[in-house]
């Protein structure tokens, strides 16, 4: 049985009050609970397909001597069943009452679990105790990783319940076995994954995470930023993974990386530049490109041209094609850049300097836009 001790005690009491053995099964066919010393036939009951299938409008069904009731809670569905005895209406009422009592207790437990993970993610391992860790912790034999979801649509945050987002995340991640969805506030959600398969699970989590943004947009019409933290070994270290996910998102937004999902472990050189002192950055720009160039009103266009040239392996034809300009125009612009900066983009070392300068400029544009105003 998958239920916690608290819930089991509650359900045992319900069984006493309604004076009948009953069981609870979740959406994925896990037996959450069955009461008393029920016989084997009772324990091996499965939910009839007719009831599971949402196409049917009724939430109650009697079959093969058992009564079944489907209960749609705020973010998940459970099935309750017992031996049929009384008239249909009575059986239905009893199961519905049992469902309500179960849901109530489960909500209390859920908020305790949520609180535990919230503390662990934001305040770190010192904020939780050992017994909570044993009780609420998830298993991750090959480590843990945190996925952050940041909702940026303001009208949505103020007008809707968080449950639709958790329901949707559950749907998206339903192929994974071990994870917890944590509500941090109405704008921020985190999913903590325990990694237990040796192969590819981490990659699959990243891959699935890249679908969250588009799915949230098409199903709930909200805009979100998704980021994936680093892989950590222990559950007590998930605050590190969480912080890395935050960094990945912030840096991703600054550098305009692939918008679907920002992955800390795949950020590349941006990871180094992000967090550099502003002073050093400005100094480097002045040194490499020169103040004269930075003042030039064509600087932006020239830099973009040079960037494209570098990204196309310094191949003139391909760069011209990528820029949709004539190759002569390209050669002219590269030449002009060379004259203004004294940097030759066809040389490796100078090309590298230009590349870093470009990233630093992008960083400053977001972090300290005032610093880039070299005029006056």
């Amino acid at each position, binding site marked *: 049985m998958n239920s916690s001790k608290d819930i089991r005690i509650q359900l045992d009491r319900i069984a006493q009050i309604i004076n009948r053995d009953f069981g609870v099964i979740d*959406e*994925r066919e896990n037996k959450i609970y069955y009461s008393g010393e029920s016989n084997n036939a009772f324990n091996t009951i499965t939910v009839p397909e007719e009831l599971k*299938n*949402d*196409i049917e*409008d009724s939430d109650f069904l009697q079959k093969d001597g058992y009564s079944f009731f489907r209960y749609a809670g705020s973010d998940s569905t459970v099935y309750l069943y017992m031996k049929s005895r009384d008239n249909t209406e009575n059986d239905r009422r009893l199961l519905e009452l049992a469902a309500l009592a179960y849901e109530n207790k489960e909500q209390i437990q859920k908020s305790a679990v949520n609180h535990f993970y919230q503390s662990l993610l934001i305040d770190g391992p010192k904020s939780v105790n050992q017994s909570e860790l044993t009780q609420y912790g998830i298993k991750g034999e090959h480590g843990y990783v945190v996925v952050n979801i940041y909702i940026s*649509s303001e*009208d*949505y945050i103020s*007008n809707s319940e968080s449950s*639709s987002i958790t*329901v*949707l995340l559950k*749907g*998206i991640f*339903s*192929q994974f076995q071990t994870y917890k969805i944590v509500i941090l506030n109405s704008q921020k959600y985190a999913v903590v994954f325990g990694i237990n398969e040796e192969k590819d699970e981490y990659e699959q989590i990243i891959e*699935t995470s*890249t*679908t*969250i*943004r*588009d*799915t949230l*947009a*098409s*199903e*709930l*019409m*909200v*805009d979100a930023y998704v980021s994936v933290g680093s892989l950590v070994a222990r559950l007590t270290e998930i605050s590190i993974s969480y912080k890395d996910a935050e960094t990945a998102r912030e840096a991703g937004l*600054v550098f*305009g990386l692939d918008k*679907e999902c920002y992955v800390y472990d795949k950020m590349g050189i941006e990871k180094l530049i992000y967090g550099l002192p502003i002073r050093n950055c400005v100094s480097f720009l002045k040194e490499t490109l020169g103040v004269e160039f930075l003042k030039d009103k064509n600087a932006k266009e020239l830099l973009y041209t040079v960037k494209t040239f570098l990204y196309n392996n310094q191949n003139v*034809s391909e760069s011209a*094609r*990528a820029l*949709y*300009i*004539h*190759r*002569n*125009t390209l050669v002219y612009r590269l030449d002009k850049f060379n004259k203004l900066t004294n940097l030759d983009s066809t040389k490796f070392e100078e090309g590298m300097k230009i590349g870093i300068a470009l990233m630093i400029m992008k960083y400053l*544009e*977001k972090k300290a*836009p005032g610093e880039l105003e070299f005029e006056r």
Partner: protein
Amino acid sequence: MASVVFKNIYKRYPGGVTAVNDFNLEVADKEFLVLVGPSGCGKSTTLRMVAGLEEVTSGELLIDGKLVNDIAPKDRDIAMVFQNYALYPHMSVFENMAFGLKLRKTPKGEIKKRVHEAARILEIEHLLDRSIKALSGGQKQRVALGRAIVREPKVFLMDEPLSNLDAKLRAQMRTEIIKLHQKLQTTVIYVTHDQVEAMTMGSRIVVMKDGYIQQVETPQRLYERPVNMFVAGFIGTPQMNFVNCRVEKINDDIFLRIGRWTIKLPEVKAKRLEEGGYIDKEVVMGIRSEHVHDEAMYLEAYKDSQIESTVEVLELLGAESLVYMMLEGHMFIAKIKPRHNIYVGDTMRFALDPNKIHVFDKDTENVITN
């Protein structure tokens, strides 16, 4: 069903990027409009503003005649299909399509009706009870479309929905989406970076670059009458040949001089160049590879517009061959009927169809004559 009108729309992101500049466009009711342009040109931003996922910085956006700048996305009567959609692996096809409606607390009977109707249109009624995991790529794509259809929106917004599919499935789904549009009779705005996709799907195409609209036209007119070198080069494969040349007037005729070759222009084009004051100036000639001919018939017909060059690369594509050459320092490609007797290193003579020559201003890159 609804029109979508953009009036002087701008989008500036915090940090300074102006992603969309003075965007003006009227998308008619029931139209299938394609936005195309290279990555980063502002297509997604434009679409996301229509959806309400991004705020409009300035300008007016109207859906069905109503100003929607301040209307929440869910109240705009639109549905979106994106590239990176997820289906819910543990649910049936029915549940996948019903999911969004359920989240919005749509009554059960209504959900059932809409899902069955969408499934009928998509011809996947027989799959409704199947698990998602058991579906083929094309069937999954249809379920994703179904999810949008059940919303019964006035406008469909599609942002590169086929980009994650392999080439064969992509081609098949293009046709499916066109058919779907005909069945649904709804306004569609479709975004792609792929000009082939744009040309095969759009009844009208908007070409964008750097946040600016370059041209709005039907596919054919876009191909035949590009307004500038960007559009000319972006639309069509292989890319249009561009060659720098000089305009010369000899007696009463106007020629384009490319090294030792001269190309005589037809009267209408000649007139444009003369009126524009381009005599003795440098311009850029553009010609598509299929208008560069090696057959005797054309060599006979276009005696005054011929060039010669050495074959550098030969690409055999089956129904046609591409001949790559250098012409006055520019790569130049001819698309010809396949022949066996051409080899790399051969010198070949070509006739350029003078009626198909485009001439562009060298500085502004705008077209002078098409």
